[in-house]
């Protein structure tokens, strides 16, 4: 028995150590390539741009995944339609700003609110009455995502579209170093993600509603027994989670593009972010989003030439390493 425990302990340490070694190696490799150490030719401006790309993409991932993890943490609902809500939000805003019918920021807010309502309806109609049956709820949201994805094609077309950035933010900004031109809107997304992160953190840590959410995450039955109307809390949380997906969709539609298949892409990124970070943890979502954003962007540039189309394997490797060390993710709890 003790031998067995010793063995699992050693195995765990080994996995952790190995992960650390790999991490150090990856950072060293990127640094060597970026700064041109040991006689190689470096490219610092490229490194800065790629790092910024990673950061801004991480911001977008964080916005989308924080909604996913919020819903999961409180209700144990894996919302498989999260990617569809993302895409629908983007498309709605795209339609609204088409022909400049509406101001960008108004459209952003309206689309996100509309998606929040869609999520709320989804929860009230389909999920509320089978609480606790998490597999069944996941299957229901999968069915809804299939229907949504298929219905979006006739309304919004099958080719990629992108939302025009608002006036003044469409161009690029000159950074102080190396005369780098960087798209302004990506920086705006990063700023918004930071704001949303702070708002969520403050809301959850320092408001009464956040306190109730935290209590609900820890012990749903007890919270309910203390006189909190848990159903209202669930409804509001689902609304916020879907709202964030819709918001992410508008920002992503401006920063990248909207197309059928983007729903799957953002469902995957949300899944990876919360699996890596730990499901239900906001801090975990932040760390997971940063990890995924950097892996996505850096692997496209810094993998040895000829191997860059294997970059998706690094995402998988990220998943493997984290789960090998901590089966519940970095900040996850059982």
């Amino acid at each position: 028995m003790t031998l067995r425990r010793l063995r699992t302990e050693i195995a765990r340490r080994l996995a952790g150590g190995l992960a650390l070694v790999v991490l150090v190696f990856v950072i060293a490799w990127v640094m060597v390539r970026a700064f041109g150490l040991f006689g190689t030719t470096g490219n610092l401006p490229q490194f800065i741009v790629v790092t910024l790309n990673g950061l801004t993409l991480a911001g977008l991932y964080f916005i989308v995944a924080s909604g996913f993890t919020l819903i999961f943490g409180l209700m144990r609902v894996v919302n498989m339609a999260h990617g569809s809500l993302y895409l629908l939000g983007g498309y709605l805003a795209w339609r609204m700003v088409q022909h400049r019918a509406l101001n960008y920021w108004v459209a952003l807010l309206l689309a996100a609110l509309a998606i929040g309502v869609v999520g709320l309806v989804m929860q009230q109609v389909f999920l509320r009455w089978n609480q606790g049956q998490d597999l069944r709820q996941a299957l229901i949201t999968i069915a809804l995502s299939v229907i949504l994805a298929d219905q979006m094609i006739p309304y919004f077309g099958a080719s990629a579209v992108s939302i025009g950035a608002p006036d003044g933010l469409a161009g690029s900004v000159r950074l102080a170093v190396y005369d780098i031109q960087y798209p302004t809107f990506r920086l705006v997304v990063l700023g918004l993600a930071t704001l949303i992160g702070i708002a969520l953190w403050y809301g959850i840590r320092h408001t009464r509603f956040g306190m109730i959410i935290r209590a609900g995450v820890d012990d749903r039955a007890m919270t309910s027994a203390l006189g909190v109307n848990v159903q209202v809390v669930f409804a509001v949380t689902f609304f916020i989670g879907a709202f964030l997906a819709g918001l992410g969709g508008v920002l992503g539609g401006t920063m990248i593009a909207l197309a059928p298949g983007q729903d799957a892409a953002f469902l995957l990124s949300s899944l990876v972010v919360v699996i890596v970070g730990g499901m239900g943890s906001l801090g975990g979502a932040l760390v997971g989003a940063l990890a995924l954003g950097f892996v996505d962007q850096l692997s496209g540039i810094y993998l040895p030439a000829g191997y860059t189309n294997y970059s998706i394997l690094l995402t998988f490797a990220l998943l493997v390493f984290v789960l090998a060390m901590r089966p519940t993710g970095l900040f996850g709890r059982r």
Partner: protein
Amino acid sequence: MRIGRLSGWLLLKRAALAGVLLVILLVPQLFSAFVASSIGVQALVLGIAAASIIFLNSAVGMVSLAQTALYGIAAYTTAKLAVVQGVDPWVAAMAAVGVTVVVALLFGAIASRSEGIYFLMITLASAVITYYFFSQVTAFGSHEGINAVEPPRLLGKPFVDPTGMYYAALICSVIIYVLIRYLRRTPFGYALQGVRDEPVRMRALGFNVPLLRTSAFVVGAFIASIAGVLLVWYNSNISPGAIDLTRTIDLLTIAVIGGLGRLEGAWIGALLFTVVQTYSPAYTDRFETLIGLIFLAVVLASPGGIAGIARSLDRFIRRRLGESVDAPALASGRQP
């Protein structure tokens, strides 16, 4: 009188089952080549793939979304070896099964330490990553995929004469059905059942729960890989579109429509799916919406799927017919 009606019902059921089996056996003779091919072969192959989901769910309580990716790996390996390297189809098929099992060991080892909804999410992530892998890597034809895969000469040309392909798929289906039924009666099967119902207690009893889960996952991958080999032989090509998220969900839909708890459900669901897929374009061009609605209806109304509905219908009729005859026995039989 009542006894007569009850045994009459049982007899009727047996006769109906025998009739259905006879029709299944004679599909290439009874139906046109089109039906035998696009409904018969497809339903059997998809049924095998769905059977791997149902096996994992009913034996170990794990719902896996990685099965499409696993059959994709088998299909890609078969295609790559046969078309690009010129290997004999049978050898390619066996290598494909081997490769899939090895990949499944990796997937399973990662996912097996989590359970329930976590397992679902991790397998889904593995599946989507596999899709991106095959759509990006040029060695596997990226978006094009691999074309002109030929089945072994023994099976003939699927689109001209599906007979050979049909019987190959049928034999594989039967073998897999019997294999799974047998496996559940072995000590391994009982250990899996223990893991499904009481993982904590099983660990306390000294069983290696993650190892058992991984082994079950590998068995599931073996089943899925056979579906993959048959699929690539039948379609004569494989592309990332055949293993994307939509197809993953389609396969889950088949398993859920058929019934996640009953093995027969896999082929029943696959038959219904292929019939809808083949004949719905005449009425609507939104096939996925239709499938999604059926899926939603089944999940909302009857989580047991069609196999579950059939079973409770049978129980209902038996109770109505035999109620006064041996009510105590039936009543005790209904106890959970």
